[in-house]
């Protein structure tokens, strides 16, 4: 390896990146803005506990229904609208008008075993409705245990849904998601340089010299990794200092998932560049894919919150695994020997290798078809 040549190439790449304002905007500034917006909307009322209003229909009190009613009353996250049970008609009316997030109809006799949950179709996927449904589930489960005479060995903790703690979780969740997003976009959008260099005839110009083109590619790659490291550090600092995120980092895991992730997304960009004739075409493809991934890969919200039919899509997207891997290694301090980490690494690697091979094949074919 020609060290002098590599050094010159690397510093040239570094200088160009530092002078490219777009890189800084999209790589650092944009994720920070996004993070701020989402924190403001979804993490703002940090002192208030998460609460939602429900209606309870308790028309024929009996032993079972009384038991459930007192339990529901004690739970802080559900608040009874007007403080007392109402008629079924009234409850349905409120649900329809979306004045409550759900109505719970308690069993009408000791023999009846069903508890009805009335929800507005439009709200079915909303956080509060989901929370009510989940809470009700837990209460019923507990009640079932009580009925068969078993005492739960542990107390069900509703606090996990309470605001203080979940807010804390959300900032960690969002921060790691944003880092994953920023690095993935760096790779997917960054390779537009390659299209640009081809369009300007720079690749051709370099081929007229004895320059080692693999060395040039390597220097480009190393520069991109350096930029991504800057992204991780800056975004983490901002997340921790400004948004109170808590990071518990396992550096070995982080290093592996970072390298694999960054390389794979760069390979994806390389693949896009292999079939894009213009920078606009490239940006179009990169935009569509990054847009899809941004919302389906659990960057802003957990995947579990998405409709069921969409969730399988998430499980094939590389960003899902990159974000999960970063969370595991930066928030949960998951060790490098964890199998879930390696599943993610495996899928990311597969994406990277396929994209790279396909891109190389297309480049080779192109150079055979047209020499210009």
């Amino acid at each position, binding site marked *: 390896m020609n060290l002098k040549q590599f050094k*010159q190439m690397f510093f*040239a790449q570094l200088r160009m990146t530092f002078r490219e304002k777009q890189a800084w905007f999209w790589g650092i500034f944009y994720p920070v803005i996004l993070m701020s917006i989402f924190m403001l909307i979804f993490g703002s009322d940090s002192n208030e506990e998460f609460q939602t209003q429900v209606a309870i229909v308790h028309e024929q009190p009996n032993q079972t229904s009384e038991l459930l009613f007192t339990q529901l009353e004690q739970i802080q996250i559900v608040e009874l609208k007007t403080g007392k049970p109402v008629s079924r008609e009234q409850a349905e009316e409120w649900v329809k008008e979306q004045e409550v997030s759900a109505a719970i109809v308690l069993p009408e006799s000791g023999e009846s075993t069903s508890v009805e949950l009335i929800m507005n179709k439009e709200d079915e996927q909303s956080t509060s409705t989901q929370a009510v449904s989940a809470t009700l589930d837990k209460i019923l489960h507990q009640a079932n245990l009580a009925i068969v005479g078993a005492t739960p060995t542990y107390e069900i903790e509703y606090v996990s849904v309470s605001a203080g703690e979940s807010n804390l979780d959300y900032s960690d969740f969002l921060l790691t998601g944003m880092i994953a997003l920023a690095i993935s976009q760096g790779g997917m959008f960054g390779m537009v340089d390659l299209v640009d260099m081809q369009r300007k*005839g720079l690749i051709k*110009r370099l081929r007229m010299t*004895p320059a080692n083109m693999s060395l040039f590619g390597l220097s480009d790659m190393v520069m991109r990794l350096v930029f991504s490291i800057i992204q991780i550090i800056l975004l983490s600092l901002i997340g921790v200092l400004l948004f109170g995120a808590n990071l518990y980092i396992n550096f070995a895991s982080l290093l592996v998932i970072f390298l694999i992730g960054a390389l794979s997304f760069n390979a994806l960009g390389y693949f896009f560049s292999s079939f894009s004739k213009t920078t606009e075409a490239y940006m179009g493809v990169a935009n569509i894919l990054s847009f899809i991934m941004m919302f389906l890969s659990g960057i802003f919200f957990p995947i579990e919150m998405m409709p069921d039919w969409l969730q399988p899509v998430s499980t094939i997207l590389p960003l899902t695994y990159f974000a999960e891997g970063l969370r595991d290694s930066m928030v949960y301090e998951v060790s490098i020997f964890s199998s879930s980490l390696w599943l993610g690494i495996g899928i990311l690697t597969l994406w990277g290798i396929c994209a790279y091979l396909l891109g190389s094949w297309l480049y080779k074919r192109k150079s055979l078809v047209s020499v*210009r």
Partner: protein
Amino acid sequence: MPILEVNQLQKSFGDIHAVQGISFSVEPGEVFTIIGPNGAGKTMTLEMIEGLVAPDTGEIHFGELNWKQHAIEIKKKIGVQPQSSAMFDLLTPKENLDLFASFYDKARSTAEILEIVNLTDHQNNQVKKLSGGQRQRLAIGLAMISDPEIIFLDEPTTGLDPQARRNIWEIITQLKSLNKTTILTTHYMEEAEKLSDRVCIVDQGRVVTLDSPSNLIEKLTKEREVRLSFQDGETAALDGELFSNQLESVIRTEREGTSLKLWTLNPEDTLLNLFKFTKEKDYLLEQVSIREMSLEDVFIAYTGKEWRD
């Protein structure tokens, strides 16, 4: 022995026959210019010689070297300024030169090149802020950084203003004084005439003719165009026309008001007789000129086509 020999180069893209059998050889130290209208195949010819595009048929020899066996050696021997003059826009001229210098085992000093292409004052401005002429000079500087024996310049002056063009001519003249071989393309005839030792006129992928500019012009018919304009009005001009037509060397004449154009095989003799005649008649002549023949006329003579810049 020629430093470069090109033999029957051909290149087609489907139905488009970009280059259809171009041959020439270039001697060390000469400025060899390929001239022709847009789309004549100049760039394609250079790109084949530069090893970027494989010709369909034909041979290219750099002395003993050829692309199949000696690609790296040839790349070290040549310097190229492509028509697109591609370079790194976000780097400065100095950084571009340093980077390109690192591609070679031996390279000239960046400062020296900056001096030659007159960019020392702009060495630390990003390339994207340079003017067209400055950019073009840097492109030539990049071609010179490895101190190559042969330099290829593809339309270095196209689109530049007259001053910027003259700057580039100076650089080419300097290259010649350094004994470098320069292969130049242009579609400015006067530029080719001024700079080149030999000119190769191409049209539609073929060599039309090839020689030194003066030989090419000399080879044209001996008929020259002489223009005169008379101060004493149309009658004087008419008188002059009648007289010229009696001269043996004059082929034809054309008159418009007081100005007279005539085509003669012997301009000196014709003019001598004409001056005698006007002296006798006491006519005063305002302007007298013999139109110089240029490469443009050569092109027209060989192709029968109008020349357009």
